[in-house]
C-alpha cells in the first residue's frame, strides 16, 4: 500500500516546497528593505508579460532543460553529476570548433554537426570522472567538481591562446559565419506571418530541447539501457546479479549526461552569442540540479521546472535591471528552491503522508 496517492507525491509535495521557498525568498526581500509584491510584479511582467519577456524566458528555459536532463539521467543511475557546468563549457568548445572549422552552407547543416560536436565534447568531459568512479572508485561528486575548475582553466587557455582572433581584446572566439546562425523563434514567427518576441535570443534550439526531453523519456523508460540505468541506480548489487555491468552503465549514463549538458551550448553559444566566450554557461550547470530535483527526475517535470527557472532568471534579471535589488537575489531563491524541493523534501512529505494515512483511516 502506498502511503499517499501518486498525484500528491508528484505534484503536491513539490508545489508546497516551492511555495515555502518563495515565502522565505519574500522574507529575504523584505529583510533587505524591498517590497516582495512589487518585486514579483516586476518579475512576472518582465518574464511573462510580453512576447519579448517570453523570448528570454524560453531562451533560459532551453539552457536549463539540457542541464536538468543531464543531472536527471545521471541521477537515475545513482550518480550525482555536479559537473554540468564544465561539461556545458566544453560543449561550447565543441560547437565553436565545428562551426569555425568548415564553411557551412546553411544552418540546417551546421546545427546537427554542431550538436554532435557539443554532445561529444560534453560527453568526453564526463567520461573521465565516470571512468575514474567505475574503475578507480574515486567519488564522482568530487571529481566532477574538480573538472568544473579544470574546464574553466582549459577554456581560458584555448580562448586566449588559440581561438581568439589577433587584436581582439575579448577572450572569445571569432564570430560564427552568418550562414551558421540559428533562426530565432522571432524569425520563425515572422515567417508564419506574425510578430513575436523581436530581438530575443530564443531560437530553434528550444525545439531541440523538447525533442531531447522526449528522447530521454524514451531512453529511460522504454529502452533496455534505460532499464539498466534505473536498475543500477536503485541497487548496484542487484544489477550485478542481472548481468548489468556497473562500469558500462556508469560510463553510459555519464556519457549521456555529459552529452546533454554539452548540448546546451548550441543554445547559448551558437544560438545566442554566436561566438564562444568565457563563462558562457553562467551557472546553468548548477541550476540543472535544482531543475532535476524540482522536476522529480522526469523529463516532463524537468521541462516545467526549467520553465520555472527560466522565468526566475528572466524575471530576476529584470528585477536587477530596473530595481535596486542585487542580482544575487536569484542565487538565494535558487538555493532555497534546491533546499526545499531537494533536501527538505521530507519536511513537507512527512506531514502530508500522515495526513493521507489519517484520511484513509477515516475513509475505511
Amino acid at each position, binding site marked *: 500500500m502506498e502511503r499517499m496517492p501518486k498525484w500528491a507525491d508528484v505534484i503536491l509535495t513539490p508545489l508546497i516546497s516551492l511555495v515555502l521557498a518563495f515565502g522565505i525568498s519574500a522574507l529575504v526581500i523584505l529583510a533587505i528593505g524591498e517590497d516582495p509584491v512589487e518585486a514579483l510584479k516586476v518579475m512576472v511582467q518582465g518574464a511573462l508579460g510580453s512576447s519579448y519577456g517570453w523570448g528570454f524566458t524560453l531562451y533560459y528555459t532551453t539552457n536549463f532543460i539540457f542541464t536538468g536532463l543531464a543531472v536527471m539521467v545521471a541521477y537515475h543511475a545513482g550518480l550525482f553529476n555536479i559537473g554540468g557546468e564544465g561539461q556545458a563549457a566544453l560543449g561550447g568548445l565543441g560547437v565553436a570548433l565545428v562551426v569555425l572549422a568548415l564553411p557551412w552552407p546553411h544552418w540546417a547543416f551546421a546545427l546537427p554537426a554542431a550538436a554532435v560536436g557539443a554532445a561529444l565534447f560534453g560527453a568526453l568531459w564526463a567520461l573521465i570522472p565516470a571512468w575514474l568512479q567505475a574503475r578507480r572508485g574515486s567519488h564522482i561528486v568530487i571529481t566532477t567538481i574538480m573538472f568544473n*575548475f579544470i574546464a574553466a582553466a582549459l577554456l581560458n587557455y584555448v580562448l*586566449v591562446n588559440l581561438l581568439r582572433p589577433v587584436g581582439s*581584446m575579448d577572450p572569445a572566439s571569432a*564570430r560564427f559565419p552568418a550562414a551558421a546562425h540559428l533562426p530565432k523563434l522571432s524569425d520563425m514567427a515572422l515567417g508564419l506571418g506574425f510578430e513575436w518576441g523581436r530581438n530575443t535570443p530564443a531560437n530553434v534550439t528550444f525545439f531541440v530541447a523538447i525533442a531531447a526531453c522526449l528522447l530521454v523519456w524514451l531512453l529511460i523508460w522504454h529502452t533496455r539501457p534505460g532499464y539498466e540505468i534505473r536498475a543500477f541506480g536503485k541497487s548496484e548489487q542487484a544489477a550485478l546479479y542481472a548481468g548489468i555491468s556497473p562500469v558500462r552503465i556508469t560510463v553510459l549514463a555519464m556519457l549521456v549526461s555529459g552529452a546533454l549538458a554539452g548540448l546546451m551550448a548550441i543554445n547559448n553559444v551558437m544560438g*545566442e552569442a554566436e*561566438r564562444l566566450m568565457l563563462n558562457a554557461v553562467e551557472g546553468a550547470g548548477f541550476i540543472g540540479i535544482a531543475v532535476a530535483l524540482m522536476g522529480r527526475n522526469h523529463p516532463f517535470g524537468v521541462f516545467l521546472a526549467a520553465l520555472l527557472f527560466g522565468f526566475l532568471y528572466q524575471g530576476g534579471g529584470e528585477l536587477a535591471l530596473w530595481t535596486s535589488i542585487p542580482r544575487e537575489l536569484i542565487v538565494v531563491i535558487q538555493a532555497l528552491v534546491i533546499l526545499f524541493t531537494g533536501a527538505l523534501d521530507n519536511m513537507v512529505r512527512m506531514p502530508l503522508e500522515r495526513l493521507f494515512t489519517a484520511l484513509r483511516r477515516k475513509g475505511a
Partner: protein
Amino acid sequence: DPALIFDLGGKFDKSFNEAAYNGAERWKAETGGTYKELEMQSEAQREQALRRLAQSGANPIVMTGFAFGEVLAKIAPDYPDTKFVIIDMVVEQPNVQSVVFTEEQGSYLAGVAAALASKSGTVGFIGGMDIPLIHKFECGYAQGFKATRPDGKLIINYTGTTPAAWNDPVKGGELLKAQVSQGADVVYAAAGGTGIGVLQAAADAGVLSIGVDSNQNHLHPGQVLTSMVKGVDVSVYEAFKAGTEVEPGVRVMDLASGGVSLAMDDNNKPLISDEIATAVDAAAQAIESGGIKVHDYMTDNTCPVQ
C-alpha cells in the same frame, strides 16, 4: 536622461565600473540631473538592456566594458537618434562614441616610478584573471621599468584563470608575500578585488604597492606608491555633460588628454621623491611627444620586453 550600464563585474568592482559610477555621480551632483543605471546579470541580457534603454528614450547611453562591443555594433543602427558611448572598445557606427584608454602608457609611468622607488631593483606585477587586457597593463609596466632600470628584475604573477581570480584577496596576499620573498619591494596590482588583498599585504609587509583604475592611494596612506588611474569617470562625466551632443567617433583617452595618469595626492606625497617626480614627468612628456612609443600588447599579443 542619460543612462549608464555596468558590466558583469558590477557597480562596485573597485575598477572601471566603479569609476564610471563616480563620474555619473559627479555629474548628478553638479547638475542635479538624473540618470538611469543598469547592472548586467547575464550575457544574454546585454542586447536586451541596450534595446530597452534605447526604447525608453535614454540618451546618451554609456556602457562600460569591451564585452558590449559586439552587441552595440548590432543594435546601434536600429536607433539612429540615440547616442551611445562605449568604454574600452571601438565600435564604428555613426552614433557611437568609442572611448579607449592607453593603459600601457599609464602603466609605463607606473613602471618608471616603481623602478626608482625600488631599493632592491626587483619589482612585482600581480594580475587578476589571466587575460590579454591585463597583459596590456603588465607589458606597459615592464617597458617603463626596464627602460629605467635595464638590469632590474620583474616578477609576474596572475591569480588565476577563472573569474574567481578577481575575488581572491587571500591569494593576492600570498602572491605578494612570495614576490617580497624574492626581493620585490614595489608591486603593481591589476587584479580587482584580489588587488585589495595585494595592497593590504604590501602594507603589512612594509613594501610599496601601486593601485589601479581608481585612485587607491588612500587605502593605505603612505604605503601605496601611486595608482594608475583611468579617467573612466571623466569620460562618463563628459559624455553625460555633452548629453545628446556627444561626438561620435573614437576618443582615445591617452596620457596627453589626461585619460590615464598616475595619482599624486597627499597620501603618497612623502613617497614621491623629486627624482621620481622628475623622471615620471619626463617620461610622460616623451610619450606625449612621441619620443617614447609604448607598445600595446593587444595589437599583437606580444611584449617587447620580458
